């Protein structure tokens, strides 16, 4: 099955040799009104990695996620997945909104939410077949939501709500998971659970990219960090990137104070 090479396809497990690669090349993006949100952002990451986008408020973290998700066309530059433009392989990318952007009063059940992830394969009219049902159920089970399928999303706890959206991304069989502020509003055990979960999803062969705030705990949850302030300040393994010098450059603080950056 040729398809299986390009997807994490649970029904037809394919050998996975870390060959999937995201190349972001020279992305510049402007918001309406002419404010430059991203300037010449380039980096490269592989599946199996977790990447934290870090920087002060307004540094362009959410904008970079929006560009990668195809929500905002960049002015210049492009993003390639295994050499193909991300715009051609839209279903490989799953984008998870910030908690505050979701309408939690919307009347949908967990199962319906997860089924939405099958839309790129099904389109508007095709009926879900056994394979689709299998993927949806497996996504629900993997994220520990078994038994909650018929709950409305507003009736879940914060952690469960997050996992329901992750389950939608898994049902999409996406390779790249883009998460906007996933740790915001979680308590310490909740954050630990999410950290482990994202780590295990990455080890299965996905690339996890999330915006993140806490400099001290970043190395616990992420392999790589991209420190930015409109343009990239530093990129690489967390330990190499989150140094006092580059932090002070990103946050605009004197080097001595940046060790204690929130």
């Amino acid at each position, binding site marked *: 099955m040729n398809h299986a090479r390009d997807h994490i396809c649970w029904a037809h497990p394919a050998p996975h040799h870390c060959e999937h690669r995201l190349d972001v090349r020279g992305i510049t993006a402007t918001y309406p009104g002419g404010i430059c949100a991203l300037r010449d952002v380039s980096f490269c990451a592989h599946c199996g990695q977790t990447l934290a986008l870090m920087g002060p408020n307004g540094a362009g973290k959410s904008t970079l996620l929006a560009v990668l*998700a195809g*929500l905002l066309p960049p002015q210049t530059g492009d993003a390639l997945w295994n050499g193909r433009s991300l715009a051609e392989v839209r279903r490989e*990318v799953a984008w998870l909104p910030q908690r505050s952007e979701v309408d939690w009063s919307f*009347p949908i*059940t967990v199962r319906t939410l997860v089924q939405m992830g099958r839309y790129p394969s099904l389109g508007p009219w095709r009926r879900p077949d056994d394979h689709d049902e299998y993927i949806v159920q497996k996504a629900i089970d993997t994220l520990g939501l078994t038994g909650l399928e018929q709950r409305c999303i507003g009736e879940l706890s914060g952690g469960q709500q997050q996992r329901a959206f992750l389950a939608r991304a898994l049902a999409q069989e996406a390779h790249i998971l883009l998460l906007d502020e996933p740790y915001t509003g979680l308590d310490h055990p909740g954050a630990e659970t999410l950290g482990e979960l994202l780590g295990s999803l990455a080890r299965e062969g996905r690339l996890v990219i999330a915006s993140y705030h806490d400099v001290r705990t970043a190395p616990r949850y992420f392999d790589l960090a991209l420190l930015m302030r409109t343009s990239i300040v530093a990129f690489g393994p967390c330990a190499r990137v989150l140094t006092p010098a580059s932090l002070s450059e990103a946050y605009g603080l004197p080097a001595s104070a940046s060790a204690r950056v929130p």
Partner: protein
Amino acid sequence: MKDLIEFLSSQLAQRSLWACGVVGFTDGFLSALVLLRRSSLQIGTISCALLPGIALGILLFGLGRWSVLAGAVLAGLLVGLSSLFVSRSARFLHQDAALSVIHSFAFAAGYIVLMRMGLQQKVDDWLFGNIMSMGDTDLWIAYLTGALAILLITAFSRPLIIFLFDSRAAAALGLPSRALSYGIFALIILALVSSLQAVGAFLTLGLLVAPAATMRFFSRRPASLFWGGGLIGASCGILAFLLSFLLRWHLGATMVLLLGLAFLASFALSRLSAAHPRK
């Protein structure tokens, strides 16, 4: 009671009763769209802008059935322009304030123009509705709107629900967000036009929000909001027609009154069942 039966045997009454049911169903069905799109405030603006829109339509095309439709489209454009203004003035003014000023300004302007044209009676009909004055064309517009709404929403329910839930995630999944958003807007404009003759610009807002809001307390699926909203709208329309004849109340107002009562009853029931959960 004998009066009622005699009245119901007349062709005019049967036609009006039928119109009440159809308009009630269509508006109730589409109220789910308004509710899930979170655009009740915007619909309020459009229904107020209908008056200046119609005035513009008559100025441009003369007085006729279709000038009302053209007017409603113009009203939609006015609202589009005003929302642009609202977003530009957001630094200084909250959306509430900006929209309220635009509402009443547009309404006042439309009222003056229409009164200057000597259309008092028409203005009354457009403001409060007059179901007896619905002509064949009006009825056909109402039928077609209802049929179109059911057809389109059923055919596109999968992408529609994803879009209504989260338009950004829908765009990320590759759905045509812009087309969906314009399609929804067009359907709501059509519903406003078809219920303008029946219940008027003021009361239409109630018909386009209340039915789905009533269902919301007991609904776990969007589909039940659409069909339940339609049924509530239709039954309140028919009941209101009978009541308004017996009690000599204004028909449109009776419709919205019944819908409001249904909403309150549904809310009270949901509180009760929350306080005494079944085992």
